[in-house]
């Protein structure tokens, strides 16, 4: 037994020294910390009372896009001396209940997404009745005003789709595939329809199960194998762009992969030419502005947008701009 312990001790000591000797001089946590130090440092810049704002989105669990929105909102909250609460649910009914809970808490402001506007109507009305200012973000530009929200901050999905269609025309594409990873999402449908509207070539839709990546890959692969004339694949979320790239190489296709939204990987792949272009709606700005505008409203009665949505996109990002954005995507703010 004693001997066994000695051996274990030796093994542990060996492992420890190996791990110390085997430090990576690139990447990893240390590089991340260095990047974080370069990002905005959190300290309140105002002396207004500590208001509480709640943000309720239709995000599923562990969504990269919403992570960026949240970090933007949190930055602004720190600056504006706001107690910021974030909650989310991808089921409309649950999301409405979360808004109800925020109203029950008597928060000072609510930020909400209207991906499922009909379901949110009553909950938003209840907030207005309780005298809580509401700002809508990301989805619901058409309903925002009718529901009585101060402002809507986001991207018009149809306009964004049209921008993609025009970019595809510019690149001389003829036969494109639009990959929808969330069946039942109205915004996604609008994106693909927008592409179809301005695109001169042929566009087909492909529905995939976004929660199952291998499934997404094999579906795109099958489509590319079945139709050799496809020369563009448009994905609707950054994580899916990389999957489409893998599918393309496995299928031996020549199609260009383009995507909505950004993340670190997409920025890197834009830089090295694996991806054609990305259309960004600046999620960081959506979170940041929503909190900031609520603060402005509480502090000064200011409302931005003049009754029209405040657009945060679309911004077409190609190889040329990607290198400048890389460091921002790395630290998770773009």
């Amino acid at each position, binding site marked *: 037994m004693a001997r066994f312990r000695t051996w274990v001790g030796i093994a542990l000591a060996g492992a420890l020294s190996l791990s110390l000797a085997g430090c990576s001089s690139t990447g990893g946590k240390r590089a991340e910390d260095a990047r974080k130090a370069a990002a905005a440092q959190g300290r309140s810049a105002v002396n207004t009372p500590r208001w509480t704002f709640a943000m309720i989105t239709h995000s599923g*669990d562990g969504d990269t896009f919403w992570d960026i929105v949240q970090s933007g909102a949190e930055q602004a909250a720190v600056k504006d001396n706001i107690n910021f*609460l974030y909650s989310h649910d991808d*089921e409309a009914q649950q999301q409405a209940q979360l808004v109800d809970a925020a109203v029950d808490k008597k928060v000072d402001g609510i930020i909400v997404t209207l991906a*499922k506007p*009909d379901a949110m109507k009553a909950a938003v009305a209840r907030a207005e009745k309780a005298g809580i200012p509401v700002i809508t973000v990301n989805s619901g530009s058409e309903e925002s005003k009718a529901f009585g929200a101060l402002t809507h901050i986001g991207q018009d999905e149809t306009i964004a789709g049209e921008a993609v269609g025009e970019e595809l025309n510019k690149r001389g594409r003829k036969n494109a595939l639009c990959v929808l990873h969330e*069946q039942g999402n109205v915004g996604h*449908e609008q994106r693909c329809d927008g592409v179809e509207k301005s695109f001169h070539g042929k566009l087909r839709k492909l529905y995939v199960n976004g929660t199952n990546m291998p499934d997404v890959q094999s579906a795109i692969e099958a489509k590319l194998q079945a139709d050799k004339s496809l020369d563009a694949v448009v994905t609707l979320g950054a994580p899916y762009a990389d999957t489409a790239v893998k599918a393309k190489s496995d299928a031996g296709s020549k199609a260009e992969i383009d995507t909505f939204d950004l993340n670190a990987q997409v920025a890197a792949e834009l830089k090295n030419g694996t991806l054609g272009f990305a259309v960004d709606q600046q999620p960081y700005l959506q979170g940041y502005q929503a909190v900031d505008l609520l603060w402005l409203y509480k502090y000064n009665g200011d409302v931005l947008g003049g009754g029209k949505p405040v657009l945060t996109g679309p911004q077409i990002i190609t190889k040329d701009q990607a290198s400048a954005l890389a460091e921002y995507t790395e630290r998770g703010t773009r």
Partner: protein
Amino acid sequence: MSVTTDERSPGGRSPGALPDKKSDERILQTSPLRRLLARPELGSVVGAIAVFVFFAVVADGFLHPASLATVLYASSVIGIMAVPVALLMIGGEFDLSSGVLVTSSALISSMFSYQMTANTWVGAGVSLLFTLAIGAFNGFMLTRTKLPSFIITLGTFLMLNGMNLGFTKLIDGTVSTKTIGDMEGFPSAHAVFASTLTIGGVGFKVTILWWLGLVALASWILLRTRVGNWIFAVGGNQDAARAVGVPVAKTKIGLYMAVAFGAWISGQHLLFSFDAVQSGEGVGNDMIYIIAAVIGGCLITGGYGSAIGSAVGALIFGMTSKGIVFAEWNPDWFKFFLGAMLLLATLLNTWVRKRAEAAK
């Protein structure tokens, strides 16, 4: 008609009418406390009180009447489905299609009303028939093929999910249904399925009433009727039940239709409170109903459980999901809590039941 199941005789009910003879040593005299300990839902009630006290302490504003109304509403939405799902589990079967069936029910109702320009009650009626038919299909397939219900309902779940998306797109051309808020019959249907009752300045959703009604009805069926005995019998030991003349197939088909009925109520609530339905929703909720039933003391193996327990399970679920919001915690941890709660509640149930059985 006295049906003997196995040793785990259903919650506190002596099977059949026994002659009241004090001298008969076969009849065990149990104290009220013993009887209480033998109730399937006891463990979950203890758990619910613990969760309530916990959030009352840590969550600011949890005890506001409006907050409690929100918690009750959240619980009722789960509870309405957890009741028939609990009955089904007592009957020894699963239903994995119950979550999407709620969405299907809402979609059928909405699209029929809209496309036919019919009174919304007509759509609701058609939807009820369709939903019950799907329930009957589940039960029929199960009893005919002798395949495990897990497999059968998994198939139904996938088919329904696909049909929800496919038909909605085909008929409406989009992924969510058209609004029916301006159609005839909507106001009255809204009143029945989705209205808010203001009591003392606090708005309570009508689903809470539906929920309590269903719990009462199911408890009565389980504890006071012959059908209740059949349910316990088929879940406890199917072959023995059949041998003593219990209509096993009928009971199981009936149970699946009961789940379908619950799904219809939930679906109509979804539709008439939001007047449009997203076609992709409901996936995964079936598990939540099952969890609520299990937290409430239902055994996965069947033959044991109660309707009240399922309500308590749903209440624990509602309190946890909204309590985390009121406590201003990071919602990322919600599922972790839920899992921990499930394990604890089930362990507590098992422990209590063992104690109760040892005491017999």
